[in-house]
């Protein structure tokens, strides 16, 4: 039952993704063709909001609603961020979607995106199978 709050948080995020039109293939094309500021504006504002919130949470020592301490694990560098990042970039421009929008689009009624989601799950699975043979 405690997971219901994450379902609600996801619903909020899903609504924003659609209303911001960042789930639109057209908006992603505009972003990479540099013909519109829209996507850049959304991403920069989101990063700025998250950055300021994180600073407030850290400096004020704010705890979770259940009183547990909040900590964010640091990310370590490996070459996967280069190679994987480039591969995801290709897929992002083709499908016009990152993982979040895939779910939002399916909910929005674009049922064919289920195929894209299954392919993305298959891609994740294949990565797990060949991980040890890839440069990291």
């Amino acid at each position, binding site marked *: 039952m405690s997971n219901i709050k994450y379902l609600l948080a996801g619903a909020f995020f899903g609504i924003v993704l659609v209303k911001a039109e960042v789930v639109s293939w057209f908006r992603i094309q505009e972003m990479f*063709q540099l013909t519109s500021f829209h996507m850049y504006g959304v991403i920069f504002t989101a990063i700025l909001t998250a950055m300021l919130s994180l600073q407030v949470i850290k400096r004020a020592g704010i705890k979770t609603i259940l009183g547990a301490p909040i900590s964010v694990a640091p990310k370590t*560098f490996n070459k996967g961020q280069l190679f994987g990042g*480039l591969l995801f970039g290709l897929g992002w*421009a083709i499908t016009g979607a990152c993982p979040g929008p895939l779910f*939002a689009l399916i909910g929005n009624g674009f049922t064919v995106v289920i195929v894209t989601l299954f392919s*993305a799950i298959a891609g994740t699975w294949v990565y797990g199978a060949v991980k040890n043979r890839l440069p990291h």
Partner: protein
Amino acid sequence: MELLTQPWHWAVSGFLIGLVVPLLLLLGNKAFGISSSLRHICAACLPANLSFFKYDWRKESWNLFFVGGILLGGFIAGHWLRDPHAVEIAAATRERLAGYGIYDHSRLLPPEIFSWSQLLTWKGLIFFVIGGFLVGFGTRYAGGCTSGHAIMGIANLQWPSMVATACFMAGGFFCTHVILPWVFGLVS
């Protein structure tokens, strides 16, 4: 109500998306990130004895509820907050897409590509099957996607996330300017 049904301004949208980061931390010290859900689905449904999928995915099930919520949010936005107008696209992009045979902007995705009738064509293979595969493989290889790296990681001042995001963009620019013109020449 019209405020809700019209497309939202980028500043409003960006602010609300950014708020998801503190929201998840306050709800239960959870780090914003969506591509992990694909890994949890693999671990839950087809672990196949691979060490990458041998972990207790149930401990991460909050993430599956979160993406379930995104699905629900997409439904709510599509049924009760739907914008009746076409997606407004920059003129230059509209012209370029017309050159690719894409004219219909009435919905969020072009029906000329994203419809079931295209599934068993070269378009379907490239745009949903290969494209989706690259999204899943690439995000996991990179250790995150636009939410985990570009928003959460950069907001937390993590330089590996800056590198990942720069690569997301580089891959996207290369695909849009080099691969897609070639692909559209092939399929249309």
